[in-house]
């Protein structure tokens, strides 16, 4: 953090970046307030990164710590890669929210509390000693800049006279809090006001609700002015961002958009088959209204039916995709094996969450890597790739579809809860910048041509003839195939050969991968190796280490299977290798066994992304050890 020293004047202190967190009951509209704050900050010209954090229960008991929903945004005048480690400003809508989040606030940071909700019954719900109002704790005002505001009461006042019932009026209090946050960080309210008008006033035809929300927003903003909170005001100037058109995008939105783009680029219908599961369902919600693009969505009766339908769609010549999260991937394993042995195109999106079993449905984790690699019966290698940021989900989805269609193989795309719900500014892509996806598909045979559905080209790929094509009728299935003809074969030598051919086909994909991109020096003391959604944290930590003069580079793997051909060489060029993962060491196990490298791990499974500071500390520790040995 780079707080300028606070001076007691009305000029706001200027920061390079700031982190704000909105926290309240899950029904308090915190996700919405955070989303508006992000959009406004992005439009203002800041770089932004977000981290929503909500309970698995739709409405946990009101006022309890379990029911607290939070939304964190980092906004900056420089290039940022994460939603931030520590919070500079907390908006706590009730005692439970203060209790749950205060520990994350930087000393000296702003703490806005809604004092209207600091009542004895609410202390009880939050399991706080009712005789000890936390606001009376002297440490609170010593350690933080406390802004005590009776938000519920002021909101009721602001929305009076519009004929709204108290419940609807009460629901505007998130806008009051947002208005105050805008004032504190010198952001304009117009962007949000306009969207409220468009949504409630125009789309929902409830001008009264639009007016109430906008009055609350304005009242919150004006409160800062009237309460003379000027010394607490902060300013984060716009960032120097490459000119162009941008939008804010979440990983799930980008991934769904990538699937649609892949359908258009390959001239295939996207058949997205899914069973609702957190945190993947938003992909289904995004795709369902996109029928104009030839997208068909199928909400199946279960995870197994969903993957089977996607394989059926691939068999019939279209782009079959199934989406799920960890427990669903476990159910799909057998069918993915069928996709491997029948050598049909299939994309399996796994938005990972905390496991095992139901685990932490709304929290992020990277613990399905080994499941994606090996979670099937038999020797059953298939392609595994992972996006590294919300916006990158777009490109990763297109790549997954391309590989699946061109190589006739299931591709597992490992997103995670952090990427799925987190957002970042995304520079718009134009269709002319996207390469068409060429797919060889056989037409009717020439006279006398012998068709062998399990013959192979130089990439080890078998020909693709789909139902509807005259003269190429053939049968595929889960029984071992005879090399060439594809007829059922129990021949021992053939099974060995086919097992090898299937593995080679996947391995050969590495021949066409671009060289590894190394951020930092090409060789040196320490390589930070990561994959998937941790990219932002690892990048920030390695940049910080280099800024401190350390010889640290960062490689982030998109291709987990097959891994790039030059990875072994890159690993050898560094004295030490550190693999931070949000699991207990799954990539580390693969790297150690494949490359015989003494890679170290930094592992965390708390449902939260890495803090840059903890990674930076680990790098320091490793290099001290490295220089001592």
């Amino acid at each position, binding site marked *: 953090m780079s707080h300028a020293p606070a001076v007691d004047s009305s000029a706001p202190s200027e920061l390079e970046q700031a982190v704000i967190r909105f926290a309240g009951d899950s029904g308090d509209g915190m996700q919405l307030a955070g989303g508006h704050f992000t959009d406004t900050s992005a439009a203002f010209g800041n770089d932004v990164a977000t981290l929503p954090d909500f309970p698995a229960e739709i409405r946990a008991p009101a006022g309890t710590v379990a029911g607290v929903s939070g939304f964190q945004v980092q906004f900056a005048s420089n290039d940022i890669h994460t939603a931030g480690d520590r919070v500079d400003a907390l908006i706590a809508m009730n005692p439970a929210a203060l209790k749950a989040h205060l520990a994350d606030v930087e000393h000296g940071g702003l703490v806005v509390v809604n004092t209207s909700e600091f009542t004895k019954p609410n202390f009880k719900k939050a399991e706080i000693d009712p005789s000890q109002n936390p606001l009376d704790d002297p440490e609170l005002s010593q350690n933080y800049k406390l802004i005590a505001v009776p938000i519920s009461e002021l909101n009721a006042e602001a929305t009076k006279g519009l004929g709204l019932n108290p419940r609807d009026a009460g629901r505007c209090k998130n806008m009051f809090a947002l208005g105050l946050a805008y004032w504190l960080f010198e952001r304009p309210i117009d962007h949000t006001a306009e969207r409220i008008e468009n949504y409630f006033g125009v789309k929902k035809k409830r001008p009264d609700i639009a007016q109430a929300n906008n009055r609350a927003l304005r009242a919150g903003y004006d409160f800062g002015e009237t309460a003379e909170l000027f010394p607490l005001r902060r300013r984060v100037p716009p960032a120097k961002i490459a000119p162009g058109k941008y939008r804010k995008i979440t990983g799930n939105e980008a991934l769904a958009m990538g699937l649609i783009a892949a359908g258009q680029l390959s001239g295939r219908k996207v058949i997205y088959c899914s069973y609702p599961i957190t945190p993947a369902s938003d992909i289904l919600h995004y795709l369902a209204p996109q029928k104009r693009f030839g997208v068909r969505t199928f909400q199946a009766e279960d995870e*197994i039916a969903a993957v089977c339908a996607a394989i059926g769609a691939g068999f019939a010549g279209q782009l079959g995709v199934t989406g799920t999260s960890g427990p669903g991937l476990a159910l799909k394993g057998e*069918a993915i094996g069928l996709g491997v042995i029948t050598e049909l195109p299939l994309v399996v999106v796994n938005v990972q969450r905390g496991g095992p079993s139901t685990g932490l449905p709304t929290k992020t984790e990277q613990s399905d890597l080994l499941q994606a690699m090996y979670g099937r019966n038999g020797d059953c290698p298939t392609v595994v790739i992972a996006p590294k940021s919300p916006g990158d989900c777009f490109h990763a989805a297109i790549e997954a579809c391309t590989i699946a269609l061109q190589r006739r193989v299931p591709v597992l795309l490992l997103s995670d809860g952090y990427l799925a719900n987190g957002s970042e500014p995304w520079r718009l892509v134009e269709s002319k910048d996207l390469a068409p996806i060429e797919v060889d598909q056989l037409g009717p045979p020439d006279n006398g041509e012998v068709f062998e559905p399990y013959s192979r080209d130089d990439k080890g790929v078998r020909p693709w003839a789909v139902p509807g094509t005259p003269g190429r009728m053939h*049968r595929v299935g889960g029984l071992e195939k005879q090399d060439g003809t594809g007829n059922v074969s129990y021949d021992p030598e053939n099974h060995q050969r086919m097992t090898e051919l299937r593995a080679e086909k996947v391995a050969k994909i590495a021949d066409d991968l671009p060289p590894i991109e190394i951020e930092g020096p090409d060789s040196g003391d320490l390589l930070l190796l990561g994959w998937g959604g941790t990219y932002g944290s690892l990048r920030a930590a390695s940049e910080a280490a280099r800024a401190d003069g350390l010889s640290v580079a960062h490689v982030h793997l998109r291709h987990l299977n097959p891994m790039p051909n030059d990875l072994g060489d890159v690993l050898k060029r560094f004295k030490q290798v550190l693999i931070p993962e949000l699991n207990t060491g799954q990539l580390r196990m693969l790297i150690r066994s494949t490359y015989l490298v003494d890679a170290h791990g930094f592992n965390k499974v708390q449902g939260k992304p890495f803090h840059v500071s903890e990674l930076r500390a680990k790098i320091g520790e490793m290099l001290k050890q490295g220089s001592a040995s």
Partner: protein
Amino acid sequence: MSKDTGLPVLKAKDYASDQTVRWCPGCGDYAILNHVHRVLATVQAQPENTVFVAGIGCSSRFPYYVDTYGLHSIHGRAPGFVTGIKLANPELDVWMVTGDGDGLSIGANHLVHMLRRNVDVNILLFNNRIYGLTKGQYSPTSETGKKTKSTPMGSLDFPLNPAAVALAAEASFVARTADKDRKIGEVLEQAAKHAGSSFVEIYQNCNIFNDGAFDDLTSKDGRDANVLYLEAGKPMTFGKDGRKGVRLVGGQPEVVDLDRDGVAEDDLLFHNPSDRARAALLAQFRRPGYEELPEPFGVLFQAERPTYDGLVEAQVQAAIDQRGPGNLDELLSSGDVYEVE
């Protein structure tokens, strides 16, 4: 379905693949395979537009023996593959072959959902009341008390009634026949011509593990005594000379002898395949509580209902009609766009 393509007329043997059929000698599956080849010729199915999909089990080897496109999938999950195929290409004629284990045990969930959606597919459920491929365990349609390798003291499970399951799952076409029945061809042809999920339960003799299970329906004497051939608009008569009948008394069905009981044909039940409630009753004949009634063969129920795949296409078309085909650049620049200068 047959299409007037001007192509050479295909015969039953043209639908046989070059693969050696590997069912046990004497298995009822052979007869069913031959009838299916014939029905494909009758409706002049275009091999390239026809797909056979199966799960796992003896019956599920079926796709290998038909010279069309085929997918031998995984246990119980054929309905998922069928649905995906029809979503991808609704023009294809899809047949699904399953068994009492594949379709009603491991895959029962998928079967009922495909039926309620009315995906356009012809489903052949071979019911031999035993697990054959795993060598002789009881199945979900095995009679209670059946002694098998896994139930040495007799099975405890109450059996499922496949036709009743299909009706409860809102199937739009429910029929029953048997491997050796003389009218199996007619039933298969009606199933092939029905738009939507056509569910055909086929009693099939497993001569290795459950031999003779359906002799009381497929032997000459058994058929004469016990099978009621359903014909739309006709009175329900059966027996060697068709002189036995079924009538309703006080809402309950009973068997009457036309020669002895003084009942006229007009007093009998007339088969109306569009009557779902009546079909549910027919599905109970010869089951507990209705042991005296004959076993209905033929089409128990048939109703016109839009197919799932047709409805999906219609929604896609409606979306395009309303707002035009999707434009990728429009999509890529959607959302809350702002400009950085």
